């Protein structure tokens, strides 16, 4: 059943696949980012009470939601690497960590900027904000561990254990606003019920989420390609590739 997947365990095949996919992700994400930004910033109506400054959700919500998705993707890669001992999965996990950390920092900063006028404070130690700050520290820890060892396999193993342990934090972030009383509001968009948002505001937001997802895909592919090259620098196919580029 999974036979078709086997050739991609070879770094060379994966590298080529990433190269083929990259332009699709890059172009579609740029197009959607432009559409989402213009739609959200210029055409979506102002909110009833917050007026114009609610528009920061068009950055805050996509980066916050997807930072957790990236973490789950990273944890999946780590699980695959640990169970099937697939080195490429380590490269993928290492590629995703800084992207997730950037998204988390973005969500924290935009949240603080929004919180200052609307809550009256930019930071409060409630369950949502605190658990989300822990996510940033988890990402930073994973990045640090990836760079702490000379041996890439050992580094990936150490970072992988931290990644898997940190998965516990994801449902805590997600449900913190329901389990405890917090200053942060509960989810606006949820799969199980109708979103608590006017549709003229919702569609640009969903566009932005998709655009961010594609952008993350493109960035992950770029970083994955680099990781594969760095980890296989001594292999003949990488040397051939380098020689080819050098000739141009």
């Amino acid at each position, binding site marked *: 059943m999974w036979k078709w997947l086997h050739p991609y365990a070879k770094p060379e095949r994966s590298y080529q696949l990433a190269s083929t996919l990259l332009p699709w992700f890059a172009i579609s994400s740029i197009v959607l980012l432009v559409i989402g930004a213009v739609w959200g910033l210029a055409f979506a*109506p*102002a*909110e*009833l*009470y*917050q007026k114009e400054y*609610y528009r920061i*959700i068009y950055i805050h919500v996509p980066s916050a939601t997807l930072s957790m998705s990236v973490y789950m993707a990273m944890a999946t890669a780590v*699980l695959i690497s*640990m*169970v*099937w001992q697939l080195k490429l999965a380590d490269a993928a996990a290492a590629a995703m960590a800084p992207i997730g950390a950037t998204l988390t920092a973005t969500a924290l900063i935009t949240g603080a900027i929004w919180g200052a*006028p*609307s*809550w*009256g*404070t930019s930071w*409060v*130690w*409630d*369950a949502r904000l605190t658990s989300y700050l822990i996510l940033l520290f988890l990402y930073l820890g994973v990045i640090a561990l990836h760079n702490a060892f000379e041996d890439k396999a050992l580094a990936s193993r150490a970072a992988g254990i931290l990644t*898997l*342990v940190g*998965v*516990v934090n994801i449902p*805590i972030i997600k449900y913190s606003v329901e*389990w*405890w*009383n*917090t*200053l942060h*509001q*509960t*989810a*606006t968009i949820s799969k199980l019920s109708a979103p*608590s*948002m*006017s549709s*003229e*505001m919702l569609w640009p937001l969903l566009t932005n989420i998709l655009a961010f997802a594609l952008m993350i895909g493109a960035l992950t592919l770029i970083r994955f390609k680099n990781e594969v090259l760095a980890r296989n620098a001594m292999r003949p196919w990488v040397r051939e590739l380098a020689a080819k580029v050098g000739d141009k």
Partner: protein
Amino acid sequence: MNPRRKKRLTIISIIFVGFAAVVGLVLYSLSQNINLFYTPHEIIGGKEDTGLKPVVGQRLRIGGMVKKGSLTKNNENLEVSFIVFDATHEVTVTYEGLLPDLFREGQGIVANGVLAEGNVIVATEVLAKHDENYVAPEIAEAMKKQHQKAEKAKTSY
């Protein structure tokens, strides 16, 4: 799956489930301390599970809805007072300072302050709690009638 992979998967799963259970129990036992604020009900009647009541002079946070029509402003300085309520109880909050942008009657707030005699909280900080609803002005207009119906139903009992 071959036996070696199966074994690795089991070990990882067991460690993960064990760790999740530990974290879950810790959070469960700390759940009252993780809550950001007291509700008016908890200030007057005590916490639900422990019955612990805040004492006069205790520094605490209160969260609830601002009662409609309860906001009174002092014309000479920035002193304001308003009533915060939940399903069962209400307490008065006094505060001197600027209220945040999203502070409105009927909206949720969290106030940080000291409990005084007679269920009054002397707040040093008032934060507006935004809810999850984002409304375009036109839609709000259309929904007003619905809201008025709901208000009537609320006040009728």
